[in-house]
């Protein structure tokens, strides 16, 4: 009867007589039948329930496949498919967690707790030195069956078969017990390091194969036909970047035979399938393989992330044999990793393909907008991803990195020579003049980017492009392209690309990523940005800045970066200026004291001139000043090019600034001099007059440089002359009766304050000294037609016409807050990093932004230690990428490396933290895979 019913459903399942390859779109929320058009599958993501989940229906049907009564190979595969999805991962069911916490956006706290949950499970797995030989640790209710099992032993003895281990007494009953938790509870309770895994488990759960509990040594799974079933875990072979797959060795509860469940990248699984036996005519392995390949291609083109699921049944002898080898490998002191890898390798062979899944990796909200803004800001955006090329190109389109009608240069090469040939041919086609490497670093201006061309290459081609003979040409080509997409890259390749751009093009680079495989890239780049969230904390820990969302990168760069650059440029100029003014004031006095080195300014004032009297102003500029409002900067990314072209700090700015300082010191000194000429003015009275006029001039200069007056500005700029100079000097002069030999300032300033000789220069000197600067500023602000000047004028006029309210009573961010629905904290860029890197990270981050403006790399070309590219030995962090690593799918991250002239940026999409490192971070339990 049941047989018939299943047969009956077959056409629906398999589309006519084609059968048994079950491939799913697992979109986190929905499981779709494979016959669904790809576009529908992608569009149906948001549906809470899958529109067509025939496979799930088949599983949940009353006569559906059951472990107890497997009627056909088809049913068996259906079961195994879901078992792999549910079990072959490191998802922990954390049912006691408050739902809100695990389901919410992964904030730092919940991420930490999630992290610890997964870690605890890993620790337990690890503590168990060897896979249990048998299932004696299984539930008490299974004791009937387990009584025959031997005590657990580390000895690799062949295990006698153990009968069916099911957690129910109702084996004979027609209907199994219902699952002890609801779907909603389970969905919230799944805690995974990687959102992909959680999505798969959740999809399996919705389809009826529910992971209920995971312990160190077993998994409890609920199946529609069997109820709760405990699967003993014999061995967990975690994901790593070399193997690019994960396997779990379980004991089939029904047959008690070992069964290997494998999930991995296509290249990591398809190569290891059992070769089809031509003699076996019943076998449909070839057809399954063909269809799976077809579907996987469809998924990639749709921008889905694909995984292959496979299974292998072992018999006890094989298992015992392997267990012996594995145990030996585990016990080795030297070469343990390699031996374990060999053991894994041996087991993960001869697989039977079950099907494929596609996980939609949705772009984070605002990602496309951010990428577009970055490109408008003149930043070159490179994507370094571990995804397949088709997936990456699709995502590139989705985030507007690639545009329709763009010529895609797809570089495929198997040798450096081939790569070099193709690159050079394209260069000729693009009509780019060849330049040796040293010239690239020397040149002053970056060539214009061709909007119509984008470069796409995969890990293998990239490896050849990083070759010393090709890299120079590759860079020449790459910088012509509007965007560069590197697929299937390993973490070390990512770092190598960043390093190459940084070193050879002399660019400032920013790397942004969110996963463990972005860490080396983040550390290599000038500025590393980590996205905290579902992929764990490793990227964040390594980064200079940590963001909660990719789209905050726009604000970080366009607003905070621009502000930072502008502030630091003006602050640096001011610091040079004020030191020059101070020194020159002392210098002019040497003309009148026989160059004896006597100073007219008292020694305490000399110290305090820089330390207190003129220090708050530049600090306030450097920390708080905003020349343009955040709204204008966000709306006009093109303004960022100012920072790239160093327009706030050009060499002539520096020299003019110094010239201005000399002029101002001349005015300050000689106005005071004219007042003291041929009088009975004492040296210290004269010094007080000079230093006082100097302080007022320097602070007034500072005030001219301020672009946005906040309360702290007023305090700093009024407090500097009034408190730090006048009040301080008066107090010092009153208390210092006999001190500070030889100047002994007792009552000098008090006496000075009563004379016109002191006061007259205080007004005249600053006004005369600052007249040239004021004229130049006003003139340039009025007549310049560049975009920044336009923006400044627009802001000024907008502010003046805005309302009758004084400008300083209005918050410039009011508009933003309104737009964001009142939540300003969500929009906040986290300037502090999480983890233990607070101080250092912020410091390096600031340094990174400083260098955004400076063309650091260009001036070093005369350095004899910097050899031309071809001869310089290059060291990459980490081991050199091997061919195997490149062809295999090592990591599935999509990361941005953004470069720009004098600035750089990188971006990250998502990553799996399933590297071998146990410090892997967190995952948000309740969210779909997203950027």
């Amino acid at each position: 009867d049941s047989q018939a019913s299943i047969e009956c459903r077959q056409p629906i399942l398999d589309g006519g007589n084609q059968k048994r390859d079950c491939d799913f779109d697992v979109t986190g929320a929905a499981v779709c039948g494979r016959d669904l058009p790809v576009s529908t599958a992608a569009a149906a993501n948001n549906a809470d329930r899958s529109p067509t989940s025939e496979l799930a229906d088949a599983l949940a049907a009353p006569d559906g496949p059951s472990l107890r009564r497997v009627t056909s190979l088809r049913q068996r595969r259906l079961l195994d498919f879901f078992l792999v999805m549910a079990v072959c991962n490191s998802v922990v069911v954390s049912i006691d967690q408050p739902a809100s916490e695990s389901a919410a956006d992964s904030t730092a706290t919940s991420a930490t707790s999630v992290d610890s949950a997964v870690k605890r499970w890993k620790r337990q797995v690890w503590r168990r030195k060897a896979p249990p030989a048998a299932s004696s640790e299984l539930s008490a209710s299974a004791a009937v069956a387990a009584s025959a099992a031997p005590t657990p032993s580390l000895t690799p003895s062949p295990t006698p078969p153990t009968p069916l281990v099911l957690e129910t007494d109702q084996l004979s009953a027609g209907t199994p017990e219902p699952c002890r938790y609801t779907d909603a509870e389970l969905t919230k309770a799944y805690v995974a390091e990687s959102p992909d895994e959680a999505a798969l488990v959740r999809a399996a759960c919705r389809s009826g194969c529910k992971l209920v509990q995971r312990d160190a040594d077993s998994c409890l799974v609920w199946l529609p036909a069997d109820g709760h079933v405990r699967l003993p875990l014999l061995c967990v072979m975690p994901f790593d970047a070399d193997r690019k797959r994960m396997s779990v060795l379980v004991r089939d509860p029904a047959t008690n035979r070992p069964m290997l469940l494998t999930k991995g990248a296509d290249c990591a699984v398809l190569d290891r399938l059992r070769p089809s036996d031509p003699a076996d005519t019943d076998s449909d392995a070839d057809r399954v393989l063909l269809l799976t390949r077809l579907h996987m291609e469809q998924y990639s083109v749709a921008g889905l992330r694909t995984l292959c699921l496979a299974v292998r049944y072992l018999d006890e002898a094989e298992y015992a044999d392997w267990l012996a080898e594995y145990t030996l490998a585990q016990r080795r002191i030297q070469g343990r990793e390699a031996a374990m890898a060999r053991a894994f390798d041996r087991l993960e062979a001869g697989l039977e393909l079950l099907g494929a899944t596609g996980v939609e990796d949705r772009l984070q909200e605002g990602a496309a907008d951010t990428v577009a803004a970055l490109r408008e800001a003149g930043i070159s955006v490179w994507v370094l991803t571990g995804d397949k090329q088709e997936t990456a190109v699709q995502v590139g389109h989705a985030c507007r990195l690639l545009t329709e009608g763009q010529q895609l240069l797809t570089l495929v090469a198997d040798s450096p020579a081939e790569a070099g040939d193709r690159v050079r041919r394209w260069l000729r086609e693009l009509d780019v003049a060849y330049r040796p490497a040293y010239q690239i670093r020397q040149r002053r201006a970056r060539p214009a980017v061709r909007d119509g061309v984008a470069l796409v290459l995969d890990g293998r081609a990239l490896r050849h492009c990083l070759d010393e003979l090709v890299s120079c040409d590759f860079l020449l080509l790459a910088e012509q392209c509007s965007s560069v997409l590197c697929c299937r890259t390993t973490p070390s390749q990512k770092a190598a690309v960043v390093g190459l751009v940084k070193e050879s093009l002399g660019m400032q680079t920013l790397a942004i990523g969110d996963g463990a495989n972005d860490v080396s890239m983040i550390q290599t780049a000038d500025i590393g940005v980590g996205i905290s969230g579902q992929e764990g904390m490793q990227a964040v820990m390594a980064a200079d800045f940590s963001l909660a969302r990719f789209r905050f990168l726009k604000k970080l760069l366009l607003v905070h970066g621009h502000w930072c650059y502008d502030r630091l440029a003006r602050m640096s100029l001011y610091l040079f200026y004020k030191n020059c003014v101070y020194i020159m004031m002392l210098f002019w006095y040497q003309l009148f004291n026989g160059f004896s080195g006597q100073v007219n300014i008292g020694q305490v004032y000399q110290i305090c001139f820089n330390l207190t009297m003129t220090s708050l102003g530049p600090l306030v500029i450097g920390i708080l000043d905003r020349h343009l409002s955040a709204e204008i900067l966000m709306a006009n990314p093109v303004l960022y090019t100012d920072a790239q072209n160093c327009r706030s700090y050009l060499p002539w700015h520096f020299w003019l600034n110094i010239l201005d300082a000399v002029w101002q010191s001349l005015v300050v000194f000689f106005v005071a001099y004219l007042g003291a000429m041929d009088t009975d003015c004492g040296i210290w009275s004269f010094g007080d007059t000079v230093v006082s006029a100097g302080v007022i001039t320097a602070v007034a200069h500072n005030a001219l440089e301020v672009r946005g007056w906040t309360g702290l500005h007023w305090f700093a700029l009024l407090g500097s002359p009034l408190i730090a100079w006048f009040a301080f000097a008066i107090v010092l002069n009153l208390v210092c009766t006999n001190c500070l030999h030889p100047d002994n300032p007792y009552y000098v300033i008090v006496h000075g304050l009563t004379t016109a000789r002191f006061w007259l220069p205080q007004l005249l000197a600053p006004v005369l000294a600052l007249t040239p600067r004021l004229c130049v500023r006003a003139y340039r602000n009025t007549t310049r037609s560049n975009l920044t000047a336009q923006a400044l004028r627009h802001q000024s006029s907008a502010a003046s016409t805005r309302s009758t309210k004084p400008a300083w009573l209005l918050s410039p961010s009011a508009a933003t807050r309104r737009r964001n629905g009142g939540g300003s904290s969500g929009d906040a860029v986290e300037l502090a990093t999480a983890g233990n890197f607070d101080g250092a990270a912020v410091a390096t981050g600031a340094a990174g932004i400083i260098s955004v403006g400076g063309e650091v790399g260009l001036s070093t070309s005369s350095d004899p230690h910097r050899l031309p590219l071809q001869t310089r030995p290059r060291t990459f962090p980490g081991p050199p990428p091997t061919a195997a690593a490149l062809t295999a799918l090592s990591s599935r991250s999509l990361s941005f490396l953004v470069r720009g002239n004098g600035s750089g940026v990188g971006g990250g999409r998502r990553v799996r933290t399933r590297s071998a490192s146990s410090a892997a971070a967190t995952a948000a339990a309740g969210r779909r895979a997203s950027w």
Partner: protein
Amino acid sequence: PIIQSMASNKRAQHEMQAHSSGGPPPPPQYPDADAGADNEEKPPPPLRKPSDSKFHQQKLPAWQPLLTARSVFPLFFLVGAAFVPIGAVLFTASQSVKEAEFNYTNCRDASGISCLEQANKPDYYRWLRPPCVCNMSIHLPDNLTGQVFAYYALTNFYQNHRRYVKSRDDSQLLGWKPGSEEPLQDCSPYRQDPGSEEPLQDCSPYRQDPGSGSWILPCGAIANSLFNDTFQLFYHSPTAGADLAVEVPWTSRGISWASDRERKFGRVKNFTGTSKPPNWRLSPEQRSADSFQGDEELIVWMRTAALPSFRKLHRIVLHNASSAADWFKDGLPSGNYTLLVNYAYPVNAFSGTKSFVLTTSSWSGGRNPALGIIYMVVGCLHIVLGALFVVIHIQASKNLRSSNNEDQQTIRPVFL
């Protein structure tokens, strides 16, 4: 029942694991079973979320003025309008000050000997032998109305030289250091009366002098180089006949800062065991009864001048002194005077000059037109600049209107 058995089973497992491993507690699976385990867990790490204050989020309200021609030209006019009157007032005040300066560097004594050469001889400064007294006939063309001050002016005297400025010991001047205590090293070489035990390399003239080896009080080059010309001023009244000369009464009381007299120069109780500065003719006690507080010429001298050409206040004319009847009630009348100089201070060595200055004063100090003139010039300059920026403003707004039509790259407006 199954769930219960599962739960109890889990609990048993937990307990077993906890006992056997002693490690960290297993992951909590069920609330009821893990109430205890939760308590053992470490508290969550402190939240590192940055503060949402306006300061931390860079959202402090700010006033963002822009310096353009529009906003700057009123400023220029304002400065011009302020500075021209200030300069004019200052200039007038300076011009109202009358002063008369008499250079007596090359004056000769009655026998025609040049006092400059005389003073240049070794040891003349100290011993004044033979004394060189010169008579200068001076003429005041205008009345000096109001309080008149007498200054001496030196040129090319670098009282601001580094080694000179520091060559003093304020503690000595305050009377805090007894004669037995060492003065500051900075006073060297005028620190110790040259004894045999301390050869003075720099000052060979003093080496031969068999000294006592006692400390010099007040020590240092400043004190040692004290200006020691003395003056007497006689007025030849046109009404009283040519022979009658009335001495102008003046005093040195009040020529120094009150703060210096009160707090920086004290009374030295005991000069025994100390030496006077080598160039001094008189000892400190002889110069003033309550040295150094009463020695105002020394106090003025010790406040070293800022520039190599300087004046120092020497005497304040007493306009109501009984000895002079009513001659000087309103200042010094114009006419002929005789200045009697006891010429002692050598200036030949540094190519300096000496002058005697009679001046009145105003609120702005002495006669010094420079600042007033600069104020006026700067004021005028700003008025011109203001006009220039009005033109620039008009021109720019015209350009802006015309360029709006062109399709040049513009920024996206934001409504703030």
